[in-house]
């Protein structure tokens, strides 16, 4: 009897079951897409996430895909180890990791923005104006990312909303004209929606109305040149630039800082530039690697500084160094040509490097933790773009354009010049831009849009006995092979790759 009782108890115990919810588990240490984008704070943090994508731009786009592509750099050693050698030598193949990474970063940024735009209208804001501002910043940043894509690759897929993987393999490339149309439509839609400046600590560095208009002007200027050659866009650019110039002095950032050297270095973050990529140091993962990418082994208090030049033989080209006029104050701000290295025993180094963004004496623990912001748009740029538009619109260089050019030269300690012809002005302007923005990634994109890239590069190859020449095919990069492979036939590779 005992045995039977016992067996029944045991059996009853053995086959009790538990609730169905036992299996319905959700992550407890991570947020999922189902429960985010629900409050104004969520939206604000999601927008911060869009800005965070900007941190990839300076090194990937402005240094490697722009400066290194141009005759500002010269790869002495045929070093196949890193992509930048192939970029500089025009051997880049679609497999290059850097291309994939840049493409990925830009589309991630676009997706981040698309997610916000998909959800923001369901979120109730106490202040509807805040909502509109968040929307405007999101749309601006998304359009800006497309501007990078279209400049670097030409025809790219246009995702103007969140798309699923199934939609992703249906979405073909759009021609550059369509991408530009999207960019200008988006930026125009919100061009007056943002404040002219921010003062609250958590906002300084967000896109202002002037950032939108300045970038939009650059977009128009690019559309007016190669490859679209929509010359009517000069007027659109001119109107925006003149609006900005008309507001000179209304905010501290709409001014030409008297001293060129004051533009750079972390103490000058958020003081003189219209729009900057923000970095802070302190081991938070929010620092910049940009200064380290172009440093040799320097004897500073810096440690663990990864050096690009000494280890990888990518040097500043003699062509750039020789192109400066004597007395150009920008030369010493931009380059270091004589220094002591941290070798043992210390050596004298004379291979020039870009020191514009290097804050000497700053103690960092890591090469990727520099605090310097990186300029995306400065007032000098607005002036030079305006001068360019004015000259291009006129038969001979207008005085206003010459004045603007000479303001930049005068700050650099150089005498005024008076180019007599439209073409002479263009040449002078191109040189000024190269020096003013050396190491800021503007030069290559200007060469491309002004149609100078092919002749300038081929002349340089010839002058330096580099037995190669390029065609217009090399003015855009190959679509990353990973994307070509996702769904064969979806994308068309750029010609020449």
């Amino acid at each position, binding site marked *: 009897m005992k*045995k039977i009782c*016992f067996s029944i108890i045991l059996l009853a*115990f*053995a086959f009790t*079951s*538990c609730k169905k919810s036992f*299996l*319905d*588990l*959700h*992550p*407890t240490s991570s947020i*999922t*897409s*189902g429960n*985010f984008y629900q409050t104004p704070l969520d939206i604000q*943090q999601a927008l*911060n996430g869009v*800005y*965070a994508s900007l*941190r990839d731009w300076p090194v990937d786009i402005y240094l490697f895909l722009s400066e290194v592509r141009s005759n500002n750099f*010269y790869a*002495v*050693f*045929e*070093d*196949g*180890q890193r992509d930048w*050698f192939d970029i500089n030598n025009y*051997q880049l193949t679609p497999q290059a990791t850097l291309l994939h990474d840049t*493409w990925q970063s830009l589309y991630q940024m676009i*997706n*981040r923005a698309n*997610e916000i735009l998909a959800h923001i209208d369901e979120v109730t804001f106490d202040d509807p104006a805040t909502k509109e501002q968040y929307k405007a910043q999101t749309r601006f940043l998304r359009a800006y990312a497309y501007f990078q894509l279209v400049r670097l690759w030409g025809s790219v897929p246009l*995702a103007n909303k*969140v798309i699923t*993987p199934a939609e992703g*393999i249906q*979405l073909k490339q759009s021609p550059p004209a369509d991408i530009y149309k999207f960019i200008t439509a988006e930026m125009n839609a919100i061009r007056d929606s943002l404040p002219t400046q*921010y003062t609250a*600590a958590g*906002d*300084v560095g967000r896109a202002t109305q002037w950032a939108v208009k300045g970038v939009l002007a650059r977009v128009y200027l690019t559309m007016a040149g190669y490859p679209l050659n929509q010359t009517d866009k000069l007027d659109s650019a001119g109107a925006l630039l003149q609006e900005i110039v008309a507001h000179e002095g209304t905010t501290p950032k709409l001014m030409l800082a008297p001293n060129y050297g004051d533009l750079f270095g972390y103490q000058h*973050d958020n003081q003189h530039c219209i729009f900057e990529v*923000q970095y*802070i140091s302190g*081991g*938070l993962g*929010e620092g910049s690697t940009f200064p380290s990418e172009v440093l040799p082994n320097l004897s500073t208090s810096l*440690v663990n500084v990864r050096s690009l030049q000494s*280890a990888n033989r990518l040097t500043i080209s003699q062509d750039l160094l020789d192109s400066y006029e004597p007395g150009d104050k920008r030369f010493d701000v931009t380059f270091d040509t004589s220094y002591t290295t941290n*070798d*043992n025993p210390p050596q*004298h180094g004379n291979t020039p490097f870009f020191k514009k963004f290097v804050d000497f004496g700053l103690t960092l623990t890591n090469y990727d933790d520099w605090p310097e912001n990186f300029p995306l748009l400065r007032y000098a740029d607005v002036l030079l773009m305006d001068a360019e538009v004015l000259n291009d619109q006129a038969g001979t260089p207008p005085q206003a354009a010459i004045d603007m050019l000479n303001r930049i030269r005068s700050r650099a300690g150089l005498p005024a010049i008076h180019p007599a012809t439209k073409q002479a002005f263009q040449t002078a302007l191109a040189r000024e831009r190269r020096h003013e923005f050396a190491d800021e990634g503007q030069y290559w994109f200007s060469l491309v849009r002004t149609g100078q890239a092919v002749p300038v590069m081929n002349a340089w190859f010839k*002058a330096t*006995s*580099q037995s190669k020449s390029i065609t217009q095919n090399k003015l855009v990069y190959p679509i990353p092979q*990973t994307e070509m492979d*996702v*769904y064969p036939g979806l994308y068309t590779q750029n010609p020449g790759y």
Partner: protein
Amino acid sequence: MSLRTFTHEKTRALLVLLLAGVPFYCSAQQLTPVSGVVKDSTTGQPLTGVTVLEVGTTRGATTDAHGRFTLTPVRSAGAVKFSYLGYNDKLIPLTQAGRLKNVRLSTNNKTLNEVVVIGYGSQEKKDLTGSVAQLSAAKIQDRPITRIGQAIQGQMAGVQVRATTGEPGAALQIRVRGSSSISASNDPLYVVDGVPVPDLGNINPSDIASIEVLKDAASTAIYGSRGANGVVLITTKKGNSGNAKFQFNAYFGVQTLAKKMDLLSSKEWINMYEQAQDSAYVKEGLQSGFNWSPSDPISVRLKNLGLPANGRSNTYIPDPRWANGTDSLDYIDWQDAFYRPAMISDYQLSASGGSGKLTYRISGDYKDQDGIAAYSNYKLFSIRANLQAKLTSYLTLGLNLAPSYSWMDGGNVDGKDAQSHHVLAIAPVAEKDAGLNSGIAPYGRYFWAGSTQSPIAYQRETTNELNRQRLLSSLYLLADIYKGLDLKVSGAWNTDQQNHKTYHPTLGLGQVPGTGSSGSYTTSNTQYYLFESLLTYNRSFNGNNISALAGYTVEQTNEATTSQSNKQFANDDLTTLNMSTSTPTRSSTGELKRTLISYLARVQYNYKNKYLASASIRRDGSSIFGTDSKWGNFPSFSVGWNMAQESFMQGLPWISQWKWRYSYGENGNNGIPDYNAFGSISPDNYSFGESLVNGYVPGSLSNPDLHWEKTQSSDYGLDIGFWNNRLSVSADYYNKYTTDLLLNVPVALATGFASGYVNIGHVRNQGLEFAVNTANLTGQLQWNTSFNLAFNKNRVLQLGTGNAPIHTGFSHQTQLITVGQPIGVFYMYDAIGVYKDNADLKASPHMATNKQGDVKYRDVNGDGTIDVDDRTIVGQPDPKYSWGIYNSFTFKGIDLSFLIQGAGGNKVYDLIGRAIDRPGMGTLGNALGRWRDRWRSPSEPGDGHTPRIDGTTGSQYDSRWLYNATYVRFKSLIIGYTLPNGLIRGVDHARVYFSGENLFYLYNKDYGGYSPEALNTNGGDYGAYPDARTIMVGINLGF
């Protein structure tokens, strides 16, 4: 009800029941003890360890060293059964007590009555209808095994074991019948004494009684959503009734690097360097419009470059001391310096026995293994206690406890950017005084070398400790409810605590201690609970034998992790983290919970052991999968026919076994990361106005339909035995068809994501397996051979939308998953030589950027030019076949056994070779030895395969580093001597042996890396911890 409360309740209930069970303890009538001696019927030698059991009771004993036993029976009319491995059972009725005095057991060569452990039970081998490979303790215990996978390697047909790393304490990769999954795990399910465990780490091989690998779906379907990759069942040793028996095992050995890689010597490296400098110097001149000559001496170069007279430049100017050789500089062979002879020792002691109602086996193991890599070490301390108590005539209580603790020091050797990589990459020249401390203060780096610091000094100065505390515990209650109906209720609690500490002090010259230091401490704590009820029923009547099983199991895993990292320390005096003396860079915790509920049932039937059938089903519900697809059913059936027992076969007495088998089953693979069904939102912060702001961004795609991979497989088997099974052969053919693959499919980045998990695609594995066992000689000299051979053919049959191929491997550029090919075939440029001169370049298809001396690729599509469309399939990563042959000899007290094992038909991509070998890698580090035969000029074309030093194909992935991975290895050799019985008083069994593991390759023609089995980074060998050859001596003592 949450599982925690659920578990509490169950535990409480179990305790109550156990207490309640005590009064049931029923004492039976005791009779006069019987005793006797058991001996071998032919030799007359006493047999030690024979199980003596009163039939129908649990009353039992084992014989001692002299073959003696004493047993107190409980039934006067019963019988006593004697059983001993390798001998026929003998049954003597108690009524013939006289026969008990001197029992003779005769040997058998049959393995028919062997019992095989299967999922949730065991079965006699002759009744088996599934495909199960077994490895008995005999093949494990005489061999000094450090990792369990090692015991299986080469021993089981269709079970492919790969020593992917030589790191002490690291697990081996086990694959059962090929790889059926692309993105999910291909690891089998490991089950120790009925309890699933995530890995076999910290388990003492000497505790293992048998290892069974369930291969076909009919055997594994009872494990449902975890069975698709096969199941490895580990059964640990239990105690037997009788006096306490002790076993002491110890071994000592020395490990050495099994194979060295061919690198440039210091002199050859210098020669290559000079050539590279000449080339750079000339190019630099051209940039400024000068024609500088490669023969310019140092003084001219300094002048031309604008450097002072004492200036240096590693790009353009040689080290003047190169001319003086080792008088001025240290030439270092880093492999010789870093990989050192390393000691290994192991001590094990166990006690087992039992009296009356309690049996026990308790063992302890201490292992201390230095790694061959400098300053690496592994220690393991483990205990296992297996206890069983007969509470009443119908209740048995069992407890298994296995705590263990291991320490792994000096990790950071295995893999990319770790020390095994640096040993190969570091320049073979150092400053005379720095030597093996090159790059570590007070010595700077050698100016002409890269920044790689001495890997030896690095290992010495840095801390990298991983310790692991593991407890496997289970408690079960077995109730004999009613005539053949048994209930087993068990609970298991496994806990695993891992702590990983690292500290990297500031080592560079001129650096202030602490400023560049970094340290981290991460922990992970896993708690696993299992509750399981199994009802079994066994009945035999009129030749019908039925065995049925119904069960219910609930499992829960809770994981908690913490991670902290700091950097920039006040000094390097302490290696612990403190935010007042260092800067925190990471501080995070994580939690994860995983649940699984299952119902299972199985019926096994046979008629007169002739016609066999079995069917099973399991229903699994898992938290891992999407909200819309939590449950799945996994059925199976199998049939068998023991044809040899048919009357028409009785005229062929030399055929002792002839069994046909067929099975079919469905099971699943749930080996994907948790919560993949949910799209994640990850932090990505930014700063505004110099202050940090929090940002969140989409981290992964969501898929609420995510479910397990389904595998349907069938197995056709034949087991034949001749001459009393002196020769036995097993053959299996299987067809494993996997659908709904959990695929991490690349998606267009235009979606914002590079990939996402979906269930899509089909893969098939087909294979043949043969196992042959022979007793070649059975006299005084015994010779047994077992041979196994398995072929596996793996094919991808279907993929995602439009069957778009998936690029995978290193940087997604070395492998391809495409329809009609095995999973992950190597896909890259096929290097066919070097453009020997400009004429060759002009005449051959080439890339626009190619120059003479560059690597020449095969123009696969024949369009006259080389581009991405010329990448092609050049081999598969998984072996097409694997085999092993094991021979054992005994002659008097001497035993000798050896294992030769191999695999082949596959390739291995030597990523480490590529990393230090690409053309144009620069010369700051060392390169593969083949660079001594590089292309130098059209008149000095080298070996025709190695390009010029500054070749343009450096960024490409090509077949120059793809090697044939076919190998034949003389894996182990053991020679032992067992001392004659009774030579040492009080010692029952004493054996000394010599053993060698990883002795040498009989065939490994051309692998350029350390081991063709190595595998660590995206399908390649990126600096795996090299294999060690181990020579050991050991003793086994039983007393």
